[in-house]
């Protein structure tokens, strides 16, 4: 690999780390602004001024905010996310299984959605402005326009209640056989796919159409290449950077934005975990989950940036 790429990639990674630090400050500050503190939350109704003071002393809540921030950050870096107040469990341990569940669901939704979106995008370009293009665009737009809870309940109504093909509640547990697990996530994965499909497909279409104006596309047509070969071989490789960008944004959404879908299907993932603990006002858990979501979001975007850099032949093969 040549030096300009190494330099650009290193820059992106450094920027990402910096951004993540900034987000951690924001998350910490945000939870500090909320009325009440952890001691109040733990003691609840039974709090007396003395017991509150004792507990604050015990938890180190009287220290200045920046010391508490660095204490928290130090824990995060060493893998200690703290203890959940509501249950007293170690947050890192409870998150591990849930994060894995969320990633499992996001992975299978992505495996279907990403290739499907790109292929539909290619087909839409091939038959641009014809009825095929309009049909694809129309259906995709309709599926994004419906809110995900609506799509979720429609799927449940037809596939779980009426025809009873798939379970309507996606319970998964440790040691569950792969096949059953797949069956369980079928409906939430379908709902997620429908939600992210249109955005990726339309951006793919737009990115390729943009390239279709180029002189080299005309050159390819004048070599006698078929319309589809022109798109696949000559237009698509030059549209890859914007496509990767939108794909990564949607992958991030699959992990970070699944909250509603997980709640609908009672799927034990990060989203549901977050919602549970927000209602319980369990600040350490909310902080931890927020930070993980931010990390996922930032790293996927860095990957998109790096992929776009690597996809550029001018940077890959300097003069």
């Amino acid at each position: 690999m040549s030096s300009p790429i190494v330099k650009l990639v290193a820059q992106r990674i450094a920027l990402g780390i910096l951004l993540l630090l900034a987000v951690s400050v924001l998350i910490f500050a945000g939870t500090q602004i909320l009325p009440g503190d952890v001691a109040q939350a733990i003691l609840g109704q039974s709090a007396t001024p003395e017991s509150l003071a004792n507990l604050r002393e015990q938890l180190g809540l009287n220290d200045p905010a920046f010391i508490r921030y660095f204490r928290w950050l130090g824990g995060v870096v060493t893998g200690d996310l703290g203890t959940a107040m509501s249950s007293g469990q170690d947050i890192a341990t409870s998150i591990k299984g849930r994060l894995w569940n969320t990633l499992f669901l996001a992975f299978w939704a992505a495996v279907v959605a990403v290739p499907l979106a790109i292929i539909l995008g290619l087909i839409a370009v091939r038959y641009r402005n014809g009825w095929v293009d309009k049909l694809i665009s129309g259906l995709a737009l309709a599926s994004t326009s419906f809110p995900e809870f609506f799509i979720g309940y429609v799927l449940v109504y037809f596939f779980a209640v009426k025809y009873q093909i798939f379970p309507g509640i996606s319970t998964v547990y440790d040691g569950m056989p792969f096949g059953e697990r797949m069956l369980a996530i079928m409906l939430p994965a379908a709902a997620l796919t429908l939600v992210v499909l249109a955005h990726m497909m339309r951006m793919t279409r737009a990115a390729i159409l943009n390239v279709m104006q180029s002189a080299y596309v005309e050159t390819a047509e004048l070599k006698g290449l078929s319309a589809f070969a022109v798109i696949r071989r000559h237009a698509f490789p030059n549209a890859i950077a914007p496509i990767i960008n939108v794909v990564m944004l949607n992958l991030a959404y699959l992990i970070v934005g699944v909250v509603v879908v997980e709640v609908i299907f009672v799927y034990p993932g990060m989203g549901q975990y977050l919602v549970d603990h927000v209602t319980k006002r369990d600040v350490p858990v909310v902080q931890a989950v927020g930070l993980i979501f931010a990390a996922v979001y930032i790293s996927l975007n860095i990957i998109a940036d790096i992929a776009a850099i690597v996809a550029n032949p001018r940077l890959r093969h300097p003069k």
Partner: protein
Amino acid sequence: MADQRAKSVLLDIRNLRIEATVFPPGEAPKNIVLVHDVSLTLEKGKVLGLIGESGAGKSTIGLASMGYGRGGVRITGGEVVLNGRDILKGGKEGFRKLRGREVCYVAQSAAAAFNPAHRLMDQVVEATLLHGTATRAAAEKRAIALFKKLSLPNPESIGERFPHQVSGGQLQRVMTAMALCSEPDLIVFDEPTTALDVTTQIDVLAAIKDAIRDTHVAALYITHDLAVVAQVSDEIMVLRHGRLVEWGGTRQIIKEPRQEYTNALVSVHEIEHQEQKPGTNPFLSVKNITAAYGRSHIKVLKNVSVDIYPGQTLAVVGESGSGKSTLARAITGLLPPEQGTVTFDGRPLANRLADRPKEDLRQLQMIYQMADVAMNPRQTVGTIIGRPLEFYFGLRGRERDRRVAELLDKIEMGKGFIDRYPAELSGGQKQRVCIARSLAAKPKLIICDEVTSALDPLVAHGILKLLLELQKEENVAYLFITHDLATVKSIADSIAVMYRGEVVRYGAKSQVLAPPFDAYTDLLLSSVPEMEIGWLEKAIKGRRMASAGN
């Protein structure tokens, strides 16, 4: 005899009619005819030059021979008979089999016509492999042989490179190799050397000519430059507004044109301009300017010094990358120089544009190559020309309108244009509006950056004449940046020849253009095509002798 000719005919276009749908702003879409009943025949192995100004339909006809129309362009009548069959009857599938096999295309800008994502070799052999006329190994061998024939450097390995790693002139040759690789019967060359510098053009032209001769391929050679087409074609067809004007042998067209329009194209347009001797007091002096972009160590301008005298024209001539536009940017303050000064009326100008007072800004105006992107498309001509009047002189209302009308008269357009939008003007009219806008500020100096390069020769001629007349009336000086030596000869009082950021030759026009020349100026002058059959061979030979002498 007639039978003999019929056998050797490769391409026979009969009564070709081509139409397109245009969408004028604010009006209903309408049909326009681009090509009216044009017929032509081309024998095997011959070269026919299609010549005309923009909008003549020459590219449209060239592409029609491949059954291709850009955008909404449609062939609506006539026949295109290639190798004895009407290709228009073959349908989409028929076009695909023909393109890249029987007919290949060489585009104007090879830099844009190559896909930046693939290696050159993959693109060069693509059509050959697609049509299955050779194996990959055989096609690559053929490509390398063609690279050699077109005198590309490192013919064995240049195919491994990506388009951005190869220069423009080399890419144009690779594109010619790409067209020849599938051994077609016909190649359509669409302005293949227009985007190149003159010193590069001559080599590419010679390479193309040799390749055509050695491979016996027939060609349609499309260009607006008669001097170029005279070097390569057997016959020339002159087109105007989509109609045939004249068709004949190359010698007949350039020596004995029968039509008035052909005559206008062929005759050299002398512009009456008496060279003025430089005065004693230049009003603008550029002293030892060195400039670079960003923090780059590559100096785009190295120690450049020139003087400009009131009411005179300094032509800055050079090839792309020689630093001539950068010099304009340094003078206007758009690119503050690292070293050196610009003095105006005896006092130094601030380096940065932002530090210059309004009065200094008014004194230096610019006109650009692309008139249409230099104007706000949503403003009327009146607003565009009126803006500097308001900005510099505070003119409003009737007084402003009166001055706008006056300026429109000066550029020979008249006040009927006040309410027009740029999109409603022709290329030449747009450039005239830009001239009026710069004159509105009553500047001492107008910097003209390739102002005629995007225009057809006859239109460009009109613009140059206008500029000279205005110079006399307004006593304005021009810094005229151009790559076109013919333009320089007709309008300059003094000339600066630039090469790689340096001024290699500078002085009064009569001195600069008189021998003895330095090596670069000699190369530049000898590369300008002349309208004379056999010029190319002579020029190339002269060059070889010069390099043998070194």
